């Protein structure tokens, strides 16, 4: 294997994949990246066994094909410290990866490429494209509600559901749920559900930087792959069934409240300062035309605030974790929000007044 390129062209893929290079080093080969040269391009692969990232770089100088694994961190540190635009030659000589640049020569240890646990070609059951901006928005609007290290392991990720002409993302930690439903062209005739693990979601968000362009999505029985320009991200899926999220949506015919988002958000931020640090509970009394917020904490401090709302129904009092409401209000970008309530023990649904496919469901706290 031998290739010649400039420092900057080598540096970018190294930076992109460094996020998934295993830091714990349980398997030494996982702290390496796989560099493969084929015809006129080079691929750089890193994996932590959960998420795999491949960056493809076209080569314009003549090169020799071959594969090698090289220590990711050290290679990155060397490249970073080379001057901008420096020419770099990377080759494998006697099982060592040798990088030459200017008068410098760096010989790195390698591990056999065949031992690197890279994924083979996938046989996708579904393949389609969506605009990057749309997928990014869907992740942003729902990702915060994913569970972390929950024993209900299927909650530690995001549901991606394909329905005819639609793609729905859902995340929940059991206390609240975020859902985003958008149009998508895909070949699936039947409903399909996969759960992308938390790590895969976060890495995918990192990869979806651009506003322009399309993402190719490939789904197999075990993996989901996203091809974004030169970057291919593949994540294992969670082996489990996501709970029936439809079941926990409130009826939406009972108590309907409309409020300006920003004043509500600010009032919640202010009052929650004096809420119990762990509970974060805020009592909300919805009355015709007015919402009364009340918090207190073990130090006997308390906060109260009234804000105007558009509501004509029966007075109702509900307790919520202020953080959950704030997460939802932050994810909504519209000026006005609508809140659906049933009773003080049932879930509340929050959404922007203009339908955009995003819904937030929050379970109350006992008063």
């Amino acid at each position, binding site marked *: 294997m031998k290739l010649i390129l400039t420092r900057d062209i080598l540096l970018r893929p190294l930076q992109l994949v460094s996020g998934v290079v295993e830091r714990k080093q349980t398997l030494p080969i996982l702290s390496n990246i796989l560099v493969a040269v084929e015809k006129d391009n080079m691929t750089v692969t890193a994996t932590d066994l959960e998420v795999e990232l491949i960056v493809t770089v076209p080569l314009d100088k003549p090169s020799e094909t071959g594969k090698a694994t090289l220590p990711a961190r050290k290679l990155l540190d060397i490249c970073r410290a080379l001057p901008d635009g420096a020419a770099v030659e990377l080759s494998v000589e006697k099982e060592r990866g040798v990088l030459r640049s200017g008068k410098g020569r760096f010989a790195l240890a390698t591990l*056999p490429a065949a031992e690197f646990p890279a994924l083979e070609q996938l046989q996708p059951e579904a393949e389609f494209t969506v605009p990057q901006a749309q997928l990014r928005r869907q992740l942003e609007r729902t990702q915060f509600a994913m569970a972390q*290290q929950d*024993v209900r392991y299927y909650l530690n990720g995001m549901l991606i559901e394909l329905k005819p002409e639609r793609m729905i993302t859902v995340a929940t930690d059991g206390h609240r749920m975020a859902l985003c439903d958008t149009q998508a062209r895909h070949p699936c005739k039947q409903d399909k559900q996969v759960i992308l693990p938390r790590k895969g979601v976060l890495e995918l968000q990192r990869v979806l930087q651009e506003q322009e362009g399309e993402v190719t999505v490939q789904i197999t*029985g075990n993996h989901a792959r996203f091809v974004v320009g030169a970057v291919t991200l593949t994540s294992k899926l969670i082996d*489990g069934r996501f709970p029936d999220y439809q079941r926990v949506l409130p009826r939406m015919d009972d108590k309907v409240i409309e409020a300006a988002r920003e004043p509500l958000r600010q009032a919640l931020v202010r009052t929650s300062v004096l809420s119990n640090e762990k509970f974060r509970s805020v009592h909300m009394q919805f009355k015709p035309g007015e919402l009364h917020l009340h918090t207190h904490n073990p130090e006997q401090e308390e906060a109260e605030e009234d804000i105007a709302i558009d509501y004509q129904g029966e007075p109702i009092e509900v307790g919520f974790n202020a953080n959950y409401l704030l997460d939802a209000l932050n994810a909504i970008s519209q000026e006005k929000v609508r809140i659906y309530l049933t009773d003080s023990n049932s879930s509340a649904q929050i959404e922007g007044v203009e339908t955009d496919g995003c819904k937030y469901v929050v379970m109350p706290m006992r008063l």
Partner: protein
Amino acid sequence: MSEGLSGLLPWHSAQWDALVARRHAAALPHALLLSGPEGLGKKQFARAFSQALLCAAPGADGQACQRCPACVMFNADTHPDYQRIAPKEEGKAIGIDQVRELIAWIVLKSHAAGYKIALVAPAGRMTMEAANALLKTLEEPPDHSLLMLITDRPALLPATVRSRCQKMTFTAPGHDMAAAWLRRQLGDDAQSAGPLLALAGGAPLRALRYAREGVLDQRARLFNDMLRLARGEADPVALAAVWDDFDLRQIVHMLSNWVADMVRLQTAAQAPLTNPDLRTGLAALAGACPGKRLYAYLDQLSETARLLDKPLNARLLLEDLLIAWPAAR
């Protein structure tokens, strides 16, 4: 690895054939409990079967091909669908964090769209919390997953864990098979196969380990010291200092064997012994002390064995044992 130390061992064939048959019948269990004395190669068996299960082109006997990409990764310990948990340090427990990590891995779908296999060895080292955490996975295992629990002391596992595993028991091979295999491994030193096997309770791998650790020499020296102790030529506390660096478990094991032989000799002078090479010395010791004291000493030895897992001062335990040596005058 030298010949015979990877892959299948000659005395594994019955268990192997049973598992391969179940694999062909698509009737593999989700959880297997491999139990049997230490030194029979249970881990090696589990590894070989795991590799065969992940191999792209297993042979007619069900063994891994050793050549396909999966086998290359497996042999390099980098196969993503195979995990093993063991105590992080020698003698420590398998903690709940390790089990949680294992569960986080096993609830993800497999890398190669085949099996995902986890080995827990020694399973008896799991803390109660760790075992409880594993219970849920044993109850509702993900598809195409296989958990292999390996233990030489199944009683250390909670009944609920045991009852959720298919059991597969390993017993020591016949003496001829064991001795033949061991002689091949020992090469030049083949004649020590007999005493080594006797010392290892017939477990060939354990016997081989003893050979590498020079346990036979240690045994000869310890026996000589115990004779001196009996004759009053050595001081127990000074001896304890000499033997302090040696594995106390090993010492307790050897002493137990000798005392058991002494009890046998008191019953019948020609009784078959675990340590026939030491017959003369053992007979002299047996003649010098009352049977009651031998039994009491056996009790003390088993109590000491029980205490070995606890963080007690090994030197003190050893001193106690040497002071109480029943043959001492």
